[in-house]
């Protein structure tokens, strides 16, 4: 068994730190079967931030999107009140939904046993905006202003009817927990894209009620744990134990780390084990992160005009608005996948008040992020996604009054928007029936969306696989078709 010349350490580090390629791969958990292998072997020396092996970046072919910012709206925002206007529902408001529309669709245990299901029209006015004529409800005045940057998909559909499985499906391609998340797949396929920050960062709007989120949503599933998302917290250290404990100054920490490094170098000389080499590199990375992470999360240096554009919440750490600014800063510093979560869109009752509140918190920052990226010339290679795990029913759940009603979960169709990153701007893709119940044209399954997102990042969803328990797994399982209609 002979090995090729030692290649540089995968994480990119001092040249004397040599790891065999095989060990490097084993450490990454790729083994020789992993298809990401090709890219790793092809990576040029010391090019830690090189992206992909294919010409033009990407893993299998040129990428359009170098990074993704996913503004996940957890709970299932009502497409009928935001992005998919249905005048017929207003005309038939209060009438029973005809059985023919439902067509045997299974309902949740929440409204499934309801004796009547009256149609609920939207109390919010819709208008077309921009040259594209994309339609938005009055709840999204800021989003409407960037209408011509957006690709609205109205024909997304899923199989899940409850939040746990629904969000898990959207984020991992399977309803039952245990699979790697989208960001983990991307990190596994494309590798790290910067030296000082994790390549997959998760930000949650703080103090939100609503359906709980589960950490497996950004977990690595069966992929090596290094690919899991790193959640930046809004209070205290953004990363667990990032800060030195009281009584340890940076200078003194540096001093101790220098001695640790000497001890390790000595240990390595006697025991030339790559683990020790990696360890030395990791302590240096950790030291750098102690300054790079606080730097990126500190928004005080942002000009007032920029912060103001993200809305009144933007100065409060942990709000969706502040997280949108942080997302842009992370994107600027080479973080590849930035996952935001904003909870509390689950409006089974009290929908008019609830949805208005969530829109106030998310509409302006989401639009500002698109504008900000565009102004910085980053929108072309940054893909922004806005949407939840499923839609909401066109009929009312619970009591319906003149001013109040609720909508149940609806998997058959829902709307999301995308912007930048190689997606057609100013289009609406797909169509639902006049009741807003079923997809009638250009349906997009979650697997299709995943395949397309990977494609935009230069990854063939059928080729990015990982062998686990005897089977090659991929994000899209055995499904997924490219949604060519939305590619620029």
């Amino acid at each position, binding site marked *: *068994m002979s090995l090729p010349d030692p290649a540089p350490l995968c994480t990119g580090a001092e040249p004397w730190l040599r790891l065999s390629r095989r*060990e490097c791969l084993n450490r990454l958990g790729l083994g020789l079967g992993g298809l990401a292998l090709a890219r790793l072997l092809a990576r040029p020396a010391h090019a830690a931030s090189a992206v992909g092996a294919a010409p033009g970046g990407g893993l299998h072919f040129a990428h359009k999107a170098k990074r993704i910012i996913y503004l996940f709206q957890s709970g299932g925002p009502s497409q009928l009140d935001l992005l998919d206007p249905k005048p017929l529902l207003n005309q038939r408001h209060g009438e029973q939904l005809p059985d023919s529309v439902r067509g045997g669709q299974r309902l949740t245990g929440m409204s499934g046993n309801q004796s009547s299901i009256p149609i609920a029209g939207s109390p919010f006015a819709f208008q077309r905006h921009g040259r594209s004529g994309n339609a938005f409800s009055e709840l999204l005045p800021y989003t409407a202003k960037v209408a011509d940057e957006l690709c609205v998909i109205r024909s997304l559909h899923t199989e899940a009817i409850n939040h746990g499985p629904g969000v898990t499906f959207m984020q991992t391609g399977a309803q039952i927990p245990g699979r790697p998340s989208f960001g983990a797949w991307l990190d596994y396929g494309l590798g790290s894209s910067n030296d000082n920050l994790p390549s997959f960062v998760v930000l949650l709007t703080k103090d939100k009620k609503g359906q709980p989120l589960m950490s497996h949503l950004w977990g690595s599933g069966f992929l090596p744990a290094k690919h899991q998302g790193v959640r930046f917290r809004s209070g205290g250290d953004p990363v667990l134990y990032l800060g030195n404990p009281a009584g340890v100054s940076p200078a003194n920490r540096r*001093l*101790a780390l220098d*001695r640790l490094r000497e001890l*390790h170098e000595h240990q390595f000389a006697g*025991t030339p084990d790559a683990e020790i080499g990696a360890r030395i590199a990791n302590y240096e990375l950790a030291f750098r992160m102690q300054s790079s992470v606080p730097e990126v999360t500190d928004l005080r240096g942002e000009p007032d005009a920029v912060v103001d554009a993200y809305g009144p919440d933007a100065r409060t750490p942990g709000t969706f608005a502040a997280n949108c600014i942080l997302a842009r800063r992370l994107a600027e510093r080479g973080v590849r996948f930035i996952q935001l979560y904003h909870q509390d869109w689950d409006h089974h009752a009290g929908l008019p008040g609830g949805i208005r509140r969530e829109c106030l918190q998310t509409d302006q920052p989401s639009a500002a992020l698109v504008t900000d990226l565009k102004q910085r010339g980053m929108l072309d290679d940054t893909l922004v996604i806005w949407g939840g795990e499923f839609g909401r029913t066109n009929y009312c759940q619970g009591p319906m009054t003149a001013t109040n009603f609720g909508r149940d979960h609806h998997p058959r169709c829902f709307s999301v928007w995308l912007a930048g990153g190689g997606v057609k701007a100013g289009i609406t893709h797909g169509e639902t029936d006049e009741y807003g119940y079923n997809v009638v044209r250009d349906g997009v399954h979650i697997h299709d969306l995943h395949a397309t997102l990977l494609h935009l990042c230069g990854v063939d969803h059928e080729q990015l696989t990982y062998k686990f328990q005897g089977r090659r797994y991929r994000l899209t399982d055995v499904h997924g078709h490219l949604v060519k209609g939305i590619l620029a």
Partner: protein
Amino acid sequence: MLPAAALLASRARLLLATLAVVAAAAAEVDFNRDVRPILSDKCFQCHGPDERGRKAKLRLDTRAGALRERDGQRVIVPGRGAESELLLRVLSPHADEVMPPPEAKIGRLTPAEIDALRRWIDSGAAYQEHWAFVPPAAPNLPPAALRAGPDPRNGIDQLVFAALGRRKVAPQPEADPATLLRRVTFDLTGLPPSPAELAAFLADPAPDAYARAVERLLASPRYGERMAADWLDLARYADSFGFQVDRDWAMWPWRDWVIQAFNRNLPWDQFVTWQLAGDLMPGATEEQRLATAFNRLNPQESEGGSVEEEYRVNYINDRTATFGTAFLGLTLDCARCHDHKFDPVTQKDYYQLFAFFDDIDEAGLYSFFTPSMPTPAMWLQGAQEKETYAAATAAVSGAEQALAAVAASRWEAFAAWLAAHPDGAGLPGELARFDFEARLDAPPGAKAPVTKAMEAAKLGHFASAVDERHAANTPAENTPVPGRHGHGLRLSGDHPVNTTLGNFPRHEPFSVALWLQAPAARERAVLMHRSRAWTDAASRGYELLMVDGRLQWSLIHFWPGDAIAVRTRDPLPLGRWVHVAVTNDGSSRAAGLRVYVDGVAAPLEVVRDQLTRNITGGGGDTITLGERFRDRGFQGGLVDELRVFDRALTPLEAAEVAAPGALTRAVRAPGARDDAALLAHYLAAHDPEYRVAADALRAARARQTRLAEEAREIMVMRELSAPKTAYILRRGEYDQRGEEVRADTPEWLPPFPADAPRNRLGLARWLTAPDHPLLARVTVNRFWQALFGRGLVKTAEDFGLQGERPLHPELLDWLAVEFVRGGWDVKALLRTIVLSHTYRQRSTGTPALVADDPENTLLARGPRHRLPAEMIRDQALALSGLLVERLGGPPVHPYDLPESFKPAPAGTGDALFRRSLYTFWRRNGPAPVLEAFDVPKRVVCVARRDTTNTALHAFVLLNGTQFVEAARALAEDLLRATAGRPEALPALAFRRVLGRDPDATEAAILLRLHREQLDHYAREPGDADCYLTHGSRPADPALPPVALAAAATLVNTLMNHDLFVQKR
């Protein structure tokens, strides 16, 4: 041969000829080693066991399939590679011919692979059974094949040395004593050796010093804790339910059982049998039943609106998959939706195994509104509690007998009463009667203001005719209609008729009667209930439902496993007014429930008859008609005249309620008086002595109920008396039932024992039979993995065709055979391994050897790998002297739980210093320190952990409270030990933390480190004071802060050294 194929053949023949030359000198081809991996990896996806997914009806995983003649030609012609289409196709340069096809995106075969196929076909295309499916046979132990080097110590060494000899590689010499003791102490107890143990070992020149150390470690109670940690990953043990709601559950008594089972060395076949089927063992002990909690550790859901059956099926899938991974080393889960693509597991095989695990009375959702343990559950009572409960049960029996005796003695009093009341004496005990006549705008007689919500719902109110403190109300959607008497209500099905009474405990006799009219037969409809919800409260309370058109009357603690329920044999009459009365006699037995239809006792069948705990709690404390949270209401049903009694109506009384006058008629019936019925009425309603005895019985039962509520419960397996029918679920979907199947094992594994029961106990017997090819191999492989960081079969979870082949198959088989022959003795197995030279070798090797064999598959070096998360944290606690060595008990919250994704407050006192095994494990937010070092979330069965090396580790070890405090605690000890000799401190610190003495270079670095820190903290005494405040244990005020802070920094730095996290 067809023209196209002929052309293809000629194209490829040339290539074949070339290859033949290249490979002329190649060695003999072995199907399992050289050929099957290629076929499995590249061909079986389309030409394997999955019949439905099979392309071109070609099957390559069996010889018959591969050799079958197809259209006059054969894919494989034994002995003639050049004529075999298989080779022509893999060599074809044409996209429409080549195999695997480009669209499969699994790449072309390499020349070496093609050559292996050619040589295999040329040599006759012999198939072998997959190695793991053939029972292991003890290999002959070869004589030592090494020319020089150590002598083999046991069979492991004989086999390993022979293999090394063939490769002309020599094993490493034995590791130095300090390293070896550290290695084996971690491996067997999960902790480092204490300074005293190390000193004693280094000072012991006896040849058996090491063997004695091993015995000491195997006998330590810490051994069971260390071994349990690995099993908990497989068992997906956690302290919470998982899924979205992820509430706490108390399953830790099972975890303690695992620790104890290891400590007392329960033979592995028993360990497995108890967990799989302890409840089914003859005369099952409490401990054996407790062990079956293993099967209930699957994550469970309670998210509102989830489909109950979908999750119930999920749980059984989880049990089946766990069985496959943990005991068979097979990935059964693939066969849920279709036949396995690589292994011979058919979908039918899967559901036949599934059928072993579904025969328990469980619900797919646990209760959101109550803290109940899902059923089936067993009680965990201490000896004292058991005794008290037995006495209470005896008191209930005594009171029941006393009541019966009183009843039998009251004929004279009865006769006197009858004579005094020639018209009967009415029905006492009526608590409320709502006739729904006068609809009021405000609650009758109530002081409470009418709220906006009540106004908005346009609530109508009704007074009770017998006790005006009680009232009923309904929103306007339930509309007035002509009733049985006067007005009644038509129910919308989505809106309740609420009352203000009805919160009866299970031991209180009571009755509810009403008139109702059902428009149609329903599969399910809620007529009357006292409960918060259906699945969201596990139906806690009581309920009268229409189920499949019949009436079902139930008292429920947790549906379905802790409840009594009866159902009428006859359907409920439709389209007319029917009087229904239901009664409970307080006995908690199905026999104590009655349903009267139009005043006549309805014939009943028992649906459930196991109520062990109370039915109150969870909310929804009053009787409600026609609607329930997330349940199906009584849409379009009519109701009238709801009456509630605080005792069980007798049959005669039920007739009276249905048709007033029945009682008077019964008393007056000339010549045909039914004295038995009248006596029952008399006793229940009017006899003072009977009332005294009934009250005594009620009090005895109340006490029993209270004690029952106090008993801690744990989920276990309890087989239903009649097995459920299992089906093949098409595409794995819970509602797509196909063919019926019975519990069975796959036919390609040993046959199910003919005399074994078709249940989990039989399954355990099948599994633990000495010639089972998988269990022993899979088990010894995992123990090998625990010690070496890598199994002999690397894919510890997959021994199937896609799993990795063992590099030392003889060694695996020898260990497996010895393990079974020695009585499945785990300690003996571990002893054999750790006493071998193979284990005791130095873990370093020459650069060439390390480069050639980075994973140490050859075993030419000793084990070396990063310590598991638990050992890293436990090590810090052990070194600092903070570790609390107490076995078992409820889980604890260490310092980092407030930092968890699902934060929880940190514990206090000892809770902060327990072994990591006892750290509270929430599936949605495990302890961040452990997570940083790769513990799985324990959502699914995991046979192998990942070991990463990331920058995040540095933060935890440098800055984490647990480690900072532990470093300081050890520093205090070091300062005291080196009082007056500060120059001795660095070396002693090194030895204490890393288990060996520093060499000269290290000593110099340490000295400098120490001096720098002393200087630094002398300059910044404020920093020193701050640094000593971390954690809950105050620093020793007698020690100088500057010296202590410097020593603590030194220790903390060493806790970040390679040797601290790496076993070498």
